[in-house]
């Protein structure tokens, strides 16, 4: 018995000696022929960056992922032909293509790929990987969500290999956002080809795939994934970017994403000092995090304008449901909703400042327009705005023929003005906002009933049954290019919320927007394109189909010991320049 005990103790001792925590800085891999150069402050190697996230990757397949908890991690390990600099919001040549040329007709793009760069498993990167990526994306059986931005007028791009390091892409017509949409992740042919041919591409690079069987081209590669615990990324020794002193990037050894159950836990972990970054501080957590800023040795950064928007809109359908031959919207009410002055009046009656002060605890900005001022290259500051003024509202309503008697508003035919607003019950901030608005509408004599329903029921109302009068919802960030608003702005779009999927534009101004949106898409010159899009923003705000609500001010924080932190409004707000981040000497 004693013998066994001794053996066990010795073996435990031996096991405990086995430690391997340092990543070898493999400097012996020769630098690529065409490295990309970062002009960041030169940092020093080493260290593990820890960040908590509420949610975890559902897949590691760069083509199939369609939600942010997966793409937040995957984008750390991928590169495209072009890249978008989050700070300037412009396209740069820091990606897999070192340069490109466009033909005179603006349709034919030739990309020169970097020579001598490798995937993280040592396999060389060539034009074949690019060709393969597009083959997969355009496969109708796979149909990834990203494919829609790569199809113009129903036609695909023509992607050809000229030689191992040259790719020619031809677009069917001039396509203005081309360089932006082409920043999508390129996948390794040698890893994906087998599963693609066997018809199970969707489950390739799943959460069960061993990290050793994956190859990445970004600054980090996957080291370990423990479900509901953490995702560990480790530096890719083959990465193609160097700093000013020709040191190979990235500086950090590892980035760890800790999976926590919710946003409370994200804040708590940061407060406890267990994580190094927090990429969004909720307004209710701001006070404790601000209070410990000095003691915790971190800095809070403020981004004045968030990208996400929320708004209230009326159902503008005026037609009948072909199945029941009844109007979707009661014609009496439809008459109010389709009246521009009515919508403008109700927009003037939304007190954005009160909403910011009471619900966002002061952390918001008054917003008008489809674009946030954060989208600096696109935002048009000259659009019509609707500051809070009940007097203006009343004037507009009187002009439109409404009459107020005993504090109740009637239309010209004597119908009392009242309607029901739907919002999703999961989001108590939206319900609170609706209640504040209701209060101000009461002063106008307008009765608004609030009906919170669960998100899925709401979606079917907006998309399928159209049996609602008004609705309050929001849309997330996404990219800033106008192409990301196509489906909202064009009358045929499926998220043209107030009347989706129209066969023919219902109004003149919608027809004009349709035309302008198509035009900006084929205008390559930025200045001209911007002019056209400015006009779109103006038409939208003049006609007020969406009554805008305040936007959020964003707060994020990072420990002071991390160098090269450059917070941006585009995602990922703190890790977008991950390869440049480093730990300072303490």
């Amino acid at each position, binding site marked *: 018995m004693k013998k066994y005990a001794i053996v066990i103790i010795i073996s435990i001792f031996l096991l405990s000696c086995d430690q391997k925590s340092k990543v070898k800085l493999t400097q012996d891999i020769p630098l690529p022929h065409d490295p990309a150069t970062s002009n960041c402050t030169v940092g020093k190697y080493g260290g593990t960056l820890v960040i908590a996230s509420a949610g975890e990757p559902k897949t590691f397949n760069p083509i199939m992922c369609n939600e942010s908890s997966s793409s937040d991690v995957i984008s750390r390990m991928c590169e495209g032909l072009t890249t978008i600099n989050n700070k300037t919001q412009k396209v740069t040549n820091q990606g897999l293509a070192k340069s490109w040329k466009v033909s005179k007709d603006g349709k034919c793009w030739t990309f020169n790929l970097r020579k001598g760069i490798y995937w993280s498993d040592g396999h060389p990167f060539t034009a074949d990987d690019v060709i393969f990526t597009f083959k997969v994306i355009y496969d109708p059986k796979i*149909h990834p969500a990203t494919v829609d931005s790569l199809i113009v007028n129903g036609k695909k791009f023509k992607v050809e290999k000229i030689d191992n390091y040259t790719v020619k892409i031809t677009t069917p017509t001039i396509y203005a956002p081309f360089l932006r949409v082409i920043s999508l992740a390129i996948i390794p042919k040698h890893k994906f080809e087998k599963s693609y041919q066997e018809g199970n591409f969707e489950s390739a690079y799943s959460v069960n795939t061993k990290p050793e069987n994956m190859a990445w081209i970004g600054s980090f590669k996957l080291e370990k994934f423990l479900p509901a615990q953490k995702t560990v990324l480790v530096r890719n020794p083959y990465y193609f970017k160097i700093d000013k002193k020709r040191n190979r990037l990235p500086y950090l050894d590892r980035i760890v994403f800790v999976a926590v159950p919710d946003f409370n836990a994200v804040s708590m972990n940061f407060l406890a000092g267990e994580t190094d970054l927090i990429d969004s501080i909720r307004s209710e957590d701001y006070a404790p995090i601000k209070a410990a800023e000095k003691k915790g040795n971190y800095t809070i950064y403020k981004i004045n304008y968030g990208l996400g928007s929320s708004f209230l809109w009326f159902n503008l359908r005026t037609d009948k449901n072909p199945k029941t031959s009844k109007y979707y919207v009661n014609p009496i009410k439809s008459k109010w909703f389709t009246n521009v002055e009515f919508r403008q009046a109700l927009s003037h009656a939304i007190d954005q400042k009160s909403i910011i002060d009471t619900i966002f605890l002061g952390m918001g900005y008054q917003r008008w327009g489809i674009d946030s001022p954060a989208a600096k290259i696109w935002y048009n500051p000259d659009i019509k705005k609707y500051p809070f003024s009940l007097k203006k509202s009343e004037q507009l309503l009187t002009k439109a023929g409404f009459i107020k008697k005993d504090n109740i508003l009637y239309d010209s035919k004597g119908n009392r003005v009242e309607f029901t607003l739907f919002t999703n019950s999961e989001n108590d901030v939206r319900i609170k906002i609706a209640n504040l608005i209701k209060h101000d509408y009461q002063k106008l004599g307008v009765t608004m009933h609030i009906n919170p329903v669960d998100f899925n029921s709401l979606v079917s109302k907006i998309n399928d049954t159209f049996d609602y009068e008004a609705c309050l919802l929001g849309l997330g960030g996404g990219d800033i290019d106008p192409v990301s608003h196509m489906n909202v702005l064009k009358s045929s779009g499926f998220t043209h919320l107030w009347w989706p999927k129209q066969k023919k534009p219902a109004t003149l101004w919608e027809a004009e927007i349709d035309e302008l949106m198509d035009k900006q898409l084929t205008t390559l010159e930025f200045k001209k394109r911007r002019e056209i899009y400015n006009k779109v923003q103006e038409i939208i705000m003049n006609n007020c189909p969406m009554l805008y609500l305040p936007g959020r001010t964003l707060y994020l924080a990072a420990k002071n010991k991390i160098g090269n932190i450059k917070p941006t409004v585009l995602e990922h707000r703190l890790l977008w320049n991950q390869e440049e981040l480093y730990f300072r000497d303490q």
Partner: protein
Amino acid sequence: MHTYILRRLLHTIPLIIGITFISFILITMAPGDYLSKFKMNPQISPEKIEIMKVKFGLDKPWYIQYLKWLWAILHLDFGTSFTYQISVTSLILQRLLNTFILSFSALLFSWTIAIPIGILCATYRFSLIDKLGSFFSFLGQSISEILLALAMLFLALKTKWFPLGGMHSINYEYLSLGDKILDLLHHLILPTIVLGVFSIAHLTRYMRSQMLDILKSEYITTALSKGLSKSSVIIKHGARNAINPLVTLLGFEIAGLLSGAFIVENIMAWPGLGRLIMEALFSQDLYLVMGSLFMSSILLIFGNLIADILLSLIDPRIRLD
């Protein structure tokens, strides 16, 4: 005995069909489906949604979906998760052990504490021990798990004595085996307490009242009057008899081993099944939800069966025929 077990096993077939049938109806009757959340995303086109719908079989009526699922179950195929695009079985297996560790630790914790306290309270009835025991067990039964879990997290944040949730430290991989075990135990303390408190509280009450009944019975008086020492009477004759009904409870606890930790896992970031299933429920990941429901009903049924068998082994008065 054998015929009894066989009969019980045969009973489970209609039971399982009934349970899964009702669950399936309830899930598919809920408004929307897995694809609803994509419909409001301007970046995901209706064509893409239609392709997914056909691929996931959501275009078929619910009874066809159910029959297909049932047919696959007969071949031990639990289907593919919509969210993860891999088999439900592999997802559940990933998390099974973690949940088991937590539940087992809570079970061990609560039983080793509750039974001696229950016996003590009954033996020294109306003494200070009994009063304190009663007080804490009422407190334990009335406190909600969510509140307790949050309080524990707060304690961890303020004192830094315990980790803020999770199962391992960040640097777990680089620890020696001994440190790995210590690290796990350190992470286990708070969730075990939260999960165990309610169990301790009601088991103590249960054990106490059982023990009081037994202590009043005639064979105890006989044993004491024969001159046996009080402690041996209480432990050998009293506790052994009092514990019988608790074995039935153990059956339920086995079922709860894999499904009872939803709340704790979600608040304290324990990487178990509870979190997976909660997420699956919210995103209406149909087959993942069905797979886990199927598994917990099997466990409940078998837990009961095992308890009944154990009971007949411990208590000769019970015969299973």
